C-alpha cells in the first residue's frame, strides 16, 4: 500500500515508519547505554549525598512491576486492533497509559522524597548519575503516555471497522504498532536500569 504518495511498494517489504522506529531505537540504545555506563562509573561515589542506602527498593519494585504490566496491556491493545476489537483496543491503550502514569507517579514520589531530604543531583556523583539515568528514562515514559493520549484523543484507528481483520501494513495499525515498539523499548530499558541500580549489591 502506497502510504507515502507516489512511492512504489518498499524494497524490504517493511513499513517506512516501522523501519524508522527500529533505526531510532538503535540510536536510543546507545543513548541509554552511555547513561548506564556513566552510572557505573559513579555508583561507588556517594559520600555525603544520595547513595544506594537511600533507595527504597519496595517502592521502585512496585513501579517496575507496573511498568512491566503495561507492556502486557500494550501487547493486548495491539492484538485487539489487529482483529478489529476496537473497544478493547481503546481500553487496553487507556490501561497502558494509566500504568505509565502510575509509574511516573511513583518516580515523582521517589524524586520528591530525595529532594526533601536534600539529596539532589549535585549532592553526590552517584546522585547526579542516578538522576540523569532515571530522569531521562522517566522523560521517555512521559512521552509514551502523551503518545497514548494522542492515539485516543485523535481516534487513531477510527477507519477500522469493528470485527475487521486488518493486515500488518494497515496504516492505522502501524501507527499503533510503532508506538508499541517505542513503549516496549522504554520498558526493556527499565529492566536494565532497575537491575543495575536497585538489585546489584552496592560497592
Amino acid at each position, binding site marked *: 500500500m502506497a502510504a507515502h*504518495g*507516489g512511492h512504489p511498494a518498499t524494497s524490504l517489504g517493511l513499513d517506512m515508519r516501522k523501519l524508522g522506529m527500529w533505526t531510532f531505537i538503535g540510536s536510543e540504545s*546507545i543513548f541509554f547505554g552511555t547513561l548506564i555506563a556513566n552510572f557505573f562509573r559513579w555508583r561507588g561515589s556517594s559520600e555525603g549525598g544520595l547513595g544506594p542506602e537511600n533507595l527504597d527498593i519496595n517502592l521502585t519494585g512496585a513501579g517496575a512491576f507496573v511498568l512491566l504490566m503495561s507492556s502486557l496491556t500494550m501487547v493486548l491493545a495491539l492484538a485487539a486492533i489487529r482483529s478489529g476489537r476496537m473497544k478493547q483496543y481503546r481500553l487496553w491503550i487507556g490501561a497502558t497509559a494509566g500504568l505509565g502514569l502510575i509509574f511516573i507517579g511513583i518516580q515523582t514520589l521517589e524524586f520528591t522524597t530525595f529532594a526533601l531530604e536534600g539529596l539532589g543531583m549535585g549532592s553526590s556523583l552517584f546522585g547526579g548519575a542516578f538522576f540523569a539515568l532515571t530522569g531521562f528514562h522517566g522523560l521517555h515514559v512521559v512521552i509514551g503516555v502523551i503518545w497514548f493520549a494522542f492515539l485516543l484523543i485523535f481516534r487513531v484507528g477510527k477507519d477500522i471497522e469493528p470485527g475487521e481483520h486488518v493486515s500488518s501494513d494497515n496504516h492505522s495499525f502501524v501507527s499503533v504498532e510503532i508506538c508499541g515498539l517505542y513503549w516496549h523499548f522504554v520498558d526493556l530499558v527499565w529492566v536494565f536500569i532497575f537491575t543495575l541500580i536497585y538489585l546489584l549489591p552496592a560497592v
Partner: protein
Amino acid sequence: MATLTRSLPATRTWQTDVWSWITTVDHKRIAKLYLFSAAAFFAIAGTEAMIMRTQLAQPDAAVIDGALYNQLFTMHGVSMIFVAIMPLNAGFFNLLAPLHIGARDVAFPRLNALSFWMFLFGAIFLNLSFFTGAPDGGWFAYPPLTGKEFSPGTGMEHWILGLAVLGTSSIISSVNFIVTILNLRAPGMKMTRMPVFTWMTLVTSFLILFAFPPFTVAAVLLLTDRLVGTGFFNPAAGGDPVMWQHLFWFMGHPEVYVLILPPMGIVSEVLPTFARKPLFGYTAVVFSGISIGFLGFAVWAHHMFSVGLGPIANGVFTAITMLIAIPTGVKVLNWSATLFRASIKITTAMLFAVSFVALFTIGGLSGMMHAASPVDLQHTDTYFIVAHLHYVLFGGSVFGILAGIYYWWPKLTGRILNERLGKIHWFLAFLGFNLTFGPMHVLGNDGMPRRVYSYVSGQGWDGWNLLATVGAYLTAVSFLLFIYVLLKGLRGERSAGDDPWDGATLEWATTSPPAVHNFDSVPVIGSNRPVWDGKYEGSPVPVDAAAAESDIHMPAPSYWPIIVALGLALGAAGVIYSYPMSAVGFVMVFYGIIAWTQESTVGPPARPSGSGVGH
C-alpha cells in the same frame, strides 16, 4: 491520470517564492537550502581562519588579542565541522540519494525539512554567541577548562545546546536516509548496484546514528556540571575529566569519517565518469568504506595518547588505528587503478577529484605517523597535527565537495559552471591550500605549538608562518573567484542538457534540473551503471509498467517543520536567556507535532515533465 491543465499559481511573487522555500519538502530544494546555508557558514568560519592567519603572519603581532584568538580557533573548528562540512555533505545526500536509487523523495519528507531547519537554527544560535562571548575552549571543549569556574560566561552553553540541536538534527536525518536507502530503492536496484556515493551516505548515516548519542549525553552532563552543580567532569568535586574525553572522542573520531566518507563517495562517482571507464573494484571500494565505518568506532583513544592511559591502551589503539590504513589504502589504490590507462577528460570536477586523492593520501600518511603513540607524543598540540587534519578535511573533504559542486551543478540548476574560470579556481585553491598547510608540517616538527595566538621571533618559524599566511590569502582569493563562478552559474540559459558529463548513474537519466517527482516513470535497474548500459550496451533503462499507470502524488508542502525546529531552538536558547522563552519553545514543539500528524500529506498529482526515464 495526468492532465495538462494543472495551472501554475497565477500570481507568483517574491512572497509566494519565499513561502514555497519555507514550506518545501522536496529533497532537491532542501539540498539547495543545505548547500547555500552551509556555504554561508563556511564563509564565516573561513573568515575566522583568515583573521587567525593574519595575526600569525608575523611574530609578536597584535592584530587581535589572545582571548579573541581562543574564541576564533574554537568557533572555526566547531563551525567547519558541524555547520559547514557536515551540512554540505547533507546537501549532497539530499540531492543525490533519492535520484541514485530511483526514488521520488526521501522516506520522511517533512522530517527532512525539520532536519534542515534544526540545522539552520542551531547553527545561527551557535554563532550568536559572538555577541556575548563565544566558546573558547577548543572544539573538543575539555573540562575542567570548560567548567563554570574557568569558562564563566554563556559561551559554553551556546556550544552545548547548539551542538545538541545540531546533533539531534543529524540523528533525525540519519534515520531518514537509512530508511530511504534501505526501503525506497527502485525495482532491480539491489544494494550491490547502488552508486558508491549512496553507499557512503548509508554508512555515514549509521555512524551519526550511533556516534552522536554518547556525545549528547556528555553534553547534557557537562551542562548539569555548569548549571546544577554536579561534578562529573570536575576533578575538584571528585569527577573525572578523562571521562569527557572518552565520550567526546567516541563521537569525535567517527565524526571525521562522517566528514570524509561522503566526499570519498563523490570522488568515486567523478573519477569513473571522466576516466570514461567503470570504477575499478566497486565491491572493494564499498566494503572498504564499510570497514572504515566499523573501525572508526574503535580508535577514539588515539586522540588521547598524551593523557596517560597506559602502555596497553595506547598500544591497542595504535594497532587498531593503523589497521584503518588498510581499507583506506584499498580505496586510494582502486581510485588510482580507475585512472590507470584511462582516456581521461580533464574538467574542473576531475581536477578537484584527482587533487582529493593526492592530498588525502598525504594527510592519511601523516595520520599514520601519529597513529604510533610515541610519535604522537612528539606531534601532539603542534602545527603538525594542524597540517594533518587540514590535509584530510580541507584537501580531502572540501576538495571532494568542490568536485561534487562542479560535477552536479548542471543537474541542480541546468547550467554548467564556467570551466575556464573553474580551472583557475582549482589552480589557485590547490596552490593556496598547499602553501598554507604544507609549511605547517615543518612548523610542527620545529615545535611550534597550536592554539597559541603569538610567538617570538628567532625560532626559525617566521618565514614558514608568513608563507602559510600568503597561502591562506591565496586560498581566500580562490574562494572569492568561486563565488563569482557560482553567481555566473545561476544566470543564463539552462543549456546543460540531461547528461552533460556522459554519466553512468541514474541521476543523469532525468532532466536537469529534475522535475519535482524526479522520474516520470519508475525505472527498473539491471546493473550499477544503468545509464551507460543505455548508451553503450543498447539497453535503455526499462520502466515499471505497473507503477507507470498510477498517478504521481508528491508530498504536500508543510510549515510545521520550521515551527517545530524554531520551537526546539527557542527551547534551547531559553536555558540561557529566560525560562519563559523555553516554555514558548516547548509549546511550539508540542503543538507543531500534533498539527504535523493531523495535516494531509498528499499534494496534487504531479505532471509528467515531458522527458526523463520512460521516453
